[in-house]
């Protein structure tokens, strides 16, 4: 009997040809799967694709919404990319975003900020809120080897409960008719937007600048070098005299702080208040954004836009095609699986041997 063995091996380098083939294969497979899904539900796939496209990338409004939603994904995503590069598994960007929102919202609502400095202070507060929230699991990991996956994940729920306590309790606004909202923040604390859109461009600019700076940090500085060495081999980093705990704490401060900035952006740029459900899970979605960008901060700019367009396009399924909201999850999940298939095919080769 002839035994056929199948191996999966990481490619040393991915050629352009492989990249093109894997992208086309994955796209084709995704289209087939989604066409089938619409077909089963009795919706004309061409009509559905058209609606989704128009809603996300095919119209001025769609593009502006895609960019708006990409802002928190970008900020959280680039931070996570740096942490994951060091193999520090921060799953807590959502909680860090919420803490950033709480601190910046608190500053805007309850402190007499000088109007000219209000926005920088709000951003700074957001960064510090997120960074401090990330610092707790960072120190636990660096000093006591506590698994950061568990701590960062659980701290998401703590942050969410703190937010709920505040907006249902002491911070609830006086004229919100019982909704779990705070009052609106003063107008000088609100971020400017591109006219006719919700794009709060100061946050977008911070996100883009962070991506460029972090790309430079990872590829050209000694700190970035240490991050890369630690991510590849802790034993080699010990041998080379790299201080593991310092780098763990640093990348957690970076990723937590940037998630906190995203929270500040949502408060000061979109909601103009603190409220229940201020983030529809941006911090979790950003995990996918970071991986999809291959943990490269510059590519994360593209992946955050791509994922944001899927989120916006998903809304159209519900609104203009009239399918249930459960289908949005199915649709998003399907697209993600095929994106990951593309990643897999371009990073790994499959060898069949007899």
């Amino acid at each position, binding site marked *: 009997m002839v035994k056929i063995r199948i191996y999966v091996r990481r490619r*040393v380098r991915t050629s352009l040809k492989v990249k093109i083939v894997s992208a086309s294969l994955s796209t084709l497979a995704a289209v087939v799967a989604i066409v089938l899904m619409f077909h089963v539900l009795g919706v004309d796939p061409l009509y559905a694709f058209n609606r989704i496209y128009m809603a996300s990338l095919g119209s001025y409004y769609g593009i502006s919404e895609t960019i708006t939603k990409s802002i928190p994904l970008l900020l959280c995503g680039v931070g996570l990319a740096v942490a994951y590069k060091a193999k520090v598994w921060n799953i807590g960007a959502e909680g860090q975003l919420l803490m950033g929102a709480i601190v910046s919202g608190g500053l805007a609502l309850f402190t007499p900020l000088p109007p000219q400095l209000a926005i920088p202070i709000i951003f700074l507060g957001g960064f510090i809120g997120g960074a401090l929230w990330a610092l707790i699991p960072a120190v636990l990991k660096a000093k006591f080897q506590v698994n950061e996956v568990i701590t960062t994940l659980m701290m998401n729920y703590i942050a969410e409960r703190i937010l709920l306590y505040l907006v249902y309790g002491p911070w609830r606004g006086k004229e919100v008719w019982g909704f779990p909202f705070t009052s609106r923040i003063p107008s000088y604390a609100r971020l400017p937007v591109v006219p006719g859109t919700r794009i709060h461009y100061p946050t977008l600019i911070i996100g883009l600048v962070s991506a460029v700076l972090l790309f430079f940090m990872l590829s050209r500085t*000694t700190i970035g070098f240490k991050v890369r*060495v630690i991510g590849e081999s802790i*034993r080699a980093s010990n041998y080379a005299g790299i201080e593991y705990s310092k780098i763990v704490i640093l990348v957690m401060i970076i990723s937590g702080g940037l998630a906190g900035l995203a929270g500040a952006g949502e408060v000061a740029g979109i909601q103009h208040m603190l409220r229940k459900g201020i983030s529809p899970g941006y911090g979790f979605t950003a995990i996918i954004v970071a991986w999809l960008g291959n943990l490269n901060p510059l590519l994360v700019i593209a992946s955050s836009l791509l994922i944001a367009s899927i989120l916006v396009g998903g809304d159209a399924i519900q609104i203009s095609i009239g399918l249930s909201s459960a289908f949005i999850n199915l649709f998003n999940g399907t697209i993600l699986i095929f994106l990951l298939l593309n990643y897999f095919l371009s990073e790994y080769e499959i060898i069949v041997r007899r």
Partner: protein
Amino acid sequence: MPLVKLKNITKFFPPNILANDHINLEVNVGEIHAILGENGAGKSTLMKILYGMLQPDEGEIYIDGRKVTFRSPRDAMKYGIRMVHQHFMLIENHTVAENIALGMRTSIVNPLKEVKRRIREVSDSYGLKVDPDDYIWQLSAGEKQRVEILRALIDDVRILILDEPTSILTPNEVEKLFEVLRRIRDSGKTILFVTHKLKEVFQISDRVTVLRKGRVIATKETSETCEEELARLMIGEIAVNGINSNKSNYSGNGVVLEVEDLHVLNDKGVTAVKGVNFKVRSGEIVGIAGVAGNGQRELVEAIVGLRRAVRGRIRILNRDVTKASVLDRLKLGLAHIPEDRIGAGVVPRLSIVDNILLTRYFEKTFTLNSIIINYGKIREATREVISRFNVKASDISMPASTLSGGNIQKLIVGRELSKNPKIIVAVHPTYGLDIAASSYIRRMIIDAGNKGAGVLLVSEDLDELIEICDRIMVMFEGRIVGEFSRESFEPHTIGLLMAGIGGG
């Protein structure tokens, strides 16, 4: 007719390691056959071939005179061959009985009842004390080993292979293990006992086969040989030759490394270095001879800062660095050629250039304000290392993993020597390299000494130590048991001291 016959077994690991070189071996029914050799002699490779984990490039295996081909351990098990590895193949969160049940054919209804009955039966008849209801994680290393042996016995093993079984045991446990092994032999089963410890050969074996550098040197009846003869067979005849003649005189130079009453624990918390004292002067090459596992690794790790000293002092250039970080010691001019090259010495998935940066990222020449890396300079340094040390690399921006093992080694040695270090701690720097590359690296180490570096060279290869060292210290069971200066090298005595014979 021998039970097992290995004929011309040859195994080559690319690029240049001939682990087994036309090995012939016969094992008889009902004997304990020791396989003796230093680390890297090819013992484990040979046993893995017999167990079907590796396939030989050449040669044949006969069991009961019939030619067999093992494609995997599953095939070998059909012939009653079982191997107990140094690392146990047990599931920590399951009980002893559950682990043993895994691989057994049992009834579907309440299978553990039958398994437990078998465990009690077998453990009683061989004196292997094991509680079937204990969880594996509760057991000591010695107890886990017993579970592995028990599993083999329950499986009706005919040929039991034990790979360095005593390395994880306390002296008491060793005695108990030997009793069990004798009972197993007396019940008619055959044992292959892999070891590098001479003493054990005489304690337990009926016959012994000595391997050196992938070849069978001799097979002897244990009762007809002695420790001295085996030590000579294992380590080889050593001739002092004069390659080192152009060394400059170092006497009168300052001390660059000083170790005083050093005590270091190993990973299991047992004292592995027991009060070691020595000095290395600038320009001097000091060798540490010894069979692996006698505290050399812990000594080296303490000197470079990877392991804490529990007692004693380490001074580098007269600065007390006992508590200093690895980085501080590197900055003082320490270079370390580590034992584990792929695991620690390089980062395989980073580029060759980044790997040159690995131990030099803090140097002013390569950075702007020690923040921004000057990749132009680093590339220059990389090309220099590659051409000076003849590393075969087509593209320095490719990952280090694209290099062969020998070239990775030359890259590490080149990186460390080209830093112009004050102290070089080198562990087996030529292990696995071909003759030309080895002698080139030895030459470079001598050159580094002539330029004023003090060298501490840890090696199991006595030829190499004798060739280039000014002084050799022999380490055995955590202590320096002998010291020889160049004028008084006695390879024979050194070999015996390495094996734990003679000395003080």
